[in-house]
């Protein structure tokens, strides 16, 4: 089963199947042809009034941007053709396959996530695995990189409660890293180095991932069936959120996703991509190939790789392993941001990570498909500023034409530029069609497969598509501005903050929206006014762009509104199959969440008011014992220096709440010092923290253990010997 990758040559490319080669060739030819046609049309448009040097600059820019949307369109078309084909070749292993399953670790890296929801998901997946009868093949690792002291302690408490209440043949381990080196990639690498040898495969999940047991078993079976398969990615479907923005994303991903994913599979074949979670990986191959290289130069574009997934897939492919997308696997879910702000915060991280990949595009040894994945990631963000640059250059080019042609009115120049010309109209319609037609493909596939009822029926589905299209037109300019800002900031050397995601339906109030989108609104109003004054003929053409900016504040509030999302749900709009018939795994998750923490709103919040886990770990011996055992097991104790200890001792007079959040985590990592605080608290009884502070300040410190102290009363006496006293 296990192969020895060290025997593999540095670069191997598995033989491609005939269909993949044909698919790639067809997509390349179609993309190239349509792009050249578009360029020819564009040349005709700009050459009406003569071509100036600025317009010449727009030509390659247009080629790149138009080619990009053409490629996306052609991919979707390929997906449509495959989806409508009567028999789709699958790689499913027959259910009668009796081979015992290899050992598989399920990794759940967490970073300051809501522990209640994380462990409720763990419990639901555990129950789902138990139901398959194959739980013994799996072990779950909750790999915490949490830096918030309270969240860390709540994770420990949630883990211990889970262990007390659940009986399963699948073990659940909890590990907290003292230092989150390498972020998520470093977290997973740490697992591979310490425990990877015990497992043939690992399923990597996100903190918000929810995958059914039968899906995980099937993923494992498929990996076992193909010795060259390095990564198998199950497409994660976003579900479970209620805001309008989240429901739009959920609907779009569930309806349009399959067509695009199938088209992607047509050209990617065995050189597919990995999206960082909801995928199964071969541990040996990962350990051999996927140590992330350090990029030359300084951050933000150099240094440690932030978005690890694409690079890991490329490195696997580089060493001859297959990376595939299992488009037919179901019940693999994730959650999505609920507001534009949360989405933007997430995008900011992804943007820096993807832009870093730009330097890998031109590095040796990568498969062309892997390079295309990198390009795709870069263009996801760079396309926005490039479009804006393209429009600016067009306007400048138009202005230059205006200056060079004496006495020409704006209307005349617009006419020369061809805005009313049939070629320009054709180009515009073609561009719009490239963007909109894939939505029709997806609708057609859904209807042809008889799945319209899963999306609220034929009328509901159609209305939802229209609504989603309208919303995406409004959102695009807003996102374009943000993406442009991120890209500019990163290219100018600014780095992004890597913070935990906000995953709850928190909504957006008007004041926050005004604060965040006020500038954008003013810019939109100014641009509209300027255009109305200078060239009112262009107003209609630019109206979708300008409307998004001018209406950004109400759009942000409406998008973040859970009540609006629920209202549309009641009206049967933007429905997804899981909202009509919840899956078993979701039912299990909500049942666990409710059983343990009450209503969802309560479970989504942090600690109950007045409950301070940090205070509790100092006061409560059981909680302290749990923490010290977890710290000891993970070998993660990091002693504080004497000066910091002294400052904390002085702060303790006002109680643990006086200790700032940054120091709290440091205290939790120092097992010995925490014990000092804990024990001092014990002798202070109910007299409050002032007593603890005084005791800490005037008593001798707990000295490092002497050999005599280190071996407390004889080992035999650890068991009770009644009467020995």
């Amino acid at each position, binding site marked *: 089963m296990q192969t020895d990758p060290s025997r593999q040559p540095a670069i191997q490319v598995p033989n491609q199947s005939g269909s993949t080669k044909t698919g790639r060739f067809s997509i390349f030819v179609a993309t190239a042809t349509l792009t050249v046609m578009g360029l020819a049309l564009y040349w005709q448009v700009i050459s009406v009034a003569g071509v100036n040097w600025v317009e010449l600059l727009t030509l390659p820019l247009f080629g790149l941007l138009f080619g990009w949307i053409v490629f996306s369109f052609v991919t979707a078309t390929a997906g449509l053709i495959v989806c409508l084909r009567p028999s789709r070749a699958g790689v499913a292993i027959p259910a009668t396959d009796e081979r015992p399953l290899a050992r598989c670790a399920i990794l759940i890296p967490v970073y300051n996530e809501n522990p209640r929801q994380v462990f409720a998901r763990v419990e639901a997946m555990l129950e789902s695995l138990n139901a398959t009868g194959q739980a013994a093949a799996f072990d779950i690792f909750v790999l915490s990189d949490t830096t918030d002291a309270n969240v860390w302690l709540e994770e420990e408490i949630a883990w211990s409660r889970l262990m007390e209440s659940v009986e399963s043949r699948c073990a659940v381990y909890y590990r907290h890293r003292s230092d989150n080196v390498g972020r998520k990639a470093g977290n997973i690498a740490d697992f591979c180095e310490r425990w990877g040898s015990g497992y043939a495969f690992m399923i990597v999940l996100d903190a918000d991932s929810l995958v059914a047991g039968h899906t995980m078993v099937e993923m494992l079976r498929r990996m076992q069936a193909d010795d060259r398969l390095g990564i198998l990615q199950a497409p994660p479907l976003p579900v479970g959120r209620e805001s309008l923005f989240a429901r739009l994303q959920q609907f779009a991903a569930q309806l349009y996703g399959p067509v695009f994913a199938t088209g992607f599979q047509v050209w990617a074949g065995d050189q597919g991509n990995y999206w960082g979670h909801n995928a199964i990986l071969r541990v040996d191959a990962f350990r051999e190939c996927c140590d992330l290289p350090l990029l030359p130069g300084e951050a933000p574009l150099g240094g440690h790789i932030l978005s690890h997934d694409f690079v890991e897939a490329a490195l696997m492919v580089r060493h001859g392993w297959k990376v595939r997308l299992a488009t037919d696997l179901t019940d693999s879910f994730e959650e999505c941001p609920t507001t534009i702000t949360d989405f933007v915060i997430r995008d900011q991280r992804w943007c820096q990570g993807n832009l870093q990949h730009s330097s890998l595009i031109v590095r040796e040894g990568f498969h062309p498909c892997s390079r295309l994945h990198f390009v795709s990631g870069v263009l996801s963000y760079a396309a926005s500023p490039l479009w804006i640059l393209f429009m600016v250059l067009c306007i400048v080019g138009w202005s230059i034409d205006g200056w060079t042609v004496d006495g020409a009115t704006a209307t005349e120049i617009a006419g020369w530029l061809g805005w009313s010309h049939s070629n320009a109209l054709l180009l515009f319609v073609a561009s719009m069609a490239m963007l909109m037609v894939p939505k029709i493909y997806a609708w057609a596939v859904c209807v042809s497969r008889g799945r319209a009822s899963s999306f609220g029926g034929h009328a509901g589905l159609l209305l939802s598509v229209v609504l989603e299209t309208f919303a995406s037109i409004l959102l695009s300019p807003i996102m374009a501005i943000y993406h442009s800002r991120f890209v500019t900031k990163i290219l100018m050397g600014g780095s992004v903050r890597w913070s935990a995601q906000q995953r709850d339906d928190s909504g957006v109030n008007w004041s926050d929206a005004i604060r965040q989108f006020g500038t954008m609104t003013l810019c939109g109003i100014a641009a509209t006014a300027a255009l109305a004054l200078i060239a009112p003929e262009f107003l209609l053409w630019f109206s979708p762009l300008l409307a998004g900016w001018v209406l950004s504040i109400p759009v942000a509030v409406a998008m973040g509104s859970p009540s609006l999302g629920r209202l549309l749900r009641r009206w049967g709009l933007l429905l997804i199959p899981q909202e009509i018939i919840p899956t078993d795994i979701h039912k299990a998750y909500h049942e666990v969440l409710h059983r343990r923490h009450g209503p969802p709103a309560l479970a989504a919040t942090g600690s109950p008011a007045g409950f301070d886990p940090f205070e509790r770990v100092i006061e409560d*011996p059981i909680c302290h014992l749990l923490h010290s*055992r977890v710290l000891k097991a993970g070998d993660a104790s990091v002693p504080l220096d004497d000066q910091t200890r002294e400052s904390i001792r002085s702060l303790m007079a006002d109680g643990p709440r006086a200790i700032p959040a940054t120091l709290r985590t440091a205290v939790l990592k120092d097992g010995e010092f925490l014990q000092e605080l804990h024990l001092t608290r014990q002798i202070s009884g109910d007299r409050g923290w002032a007593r603890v502070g005084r005791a800490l300040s*005037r*008593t001798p410190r707990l000295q490092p253990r002497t050999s005599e102290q280190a071996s407390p009363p004889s080992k035999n006496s650890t068991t*009770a010997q009644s009467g020995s*006293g």
Partner: protein
Amino acid sequence: MLMGSRVNPNLFAFLTATKQTITHMTTQSIFSYTTVKFPGPELTLVTGGDDCRWEPEGDDRRGNGAPVASHVDAALCDVADYLRAHGICHPDVIQNRCRTLVDHAQHASGQDSHSQNGVDLRLASLRLAADWVGKLHDDLIVDCVSPTQHYISTFDDLISDPSLLKRERVQSLGVQDQLCRRVCRVVPNAQRQPMRHTETPALIGPLRRQWWTTKVARSWVSLRGTAETLCRVVGRRPISNAN
């Protein structure tokens, strides 16, 4: 029900051992809370429901310089409370353990109870108690290669059941069965196997100066070879000699 009688602190261990009996009595009675008050300034055994603890009398019952009979008594109280907080409620265990731990703390410091700083002794005793509880975990998990990587859930229930701890060896079958259900591994044993280092891939050829210089050098060699050949063919001197 309120009972009171004088008690010598030295009887602490014995009286602690009677905790369960007292608790039982109180639960039998119609009163939900009982204070067994022993006349004198030293200690008061307070029981309520399942709780039972020794407290020095008066407001300043547990601080430094409190009117406890001695630092040793305070340390005994602390350790007893601490063990009970861990769910170790069996009187025999408390009786035995408190005395042993405090004695050990005194012995380790090499001082007698009168000259030793009270807080220091109490802290040292508590530290030994904490160590002992940790060690108890390790010793209970006898089957594991690395007991430190384990945590016993519902530890309190296990320890508070006297029948389990009265056995000669904890690893007897019945206890092991119970332990197996309650012991959970925090993490498995690590077997370090490092990731294979990946060098940063070099830039593709055209983006490297070396690639161009090599190309140029090769082209030059090729050109020179062609020129030499041509020279030989036409019978003239080679170019290199001319240079």
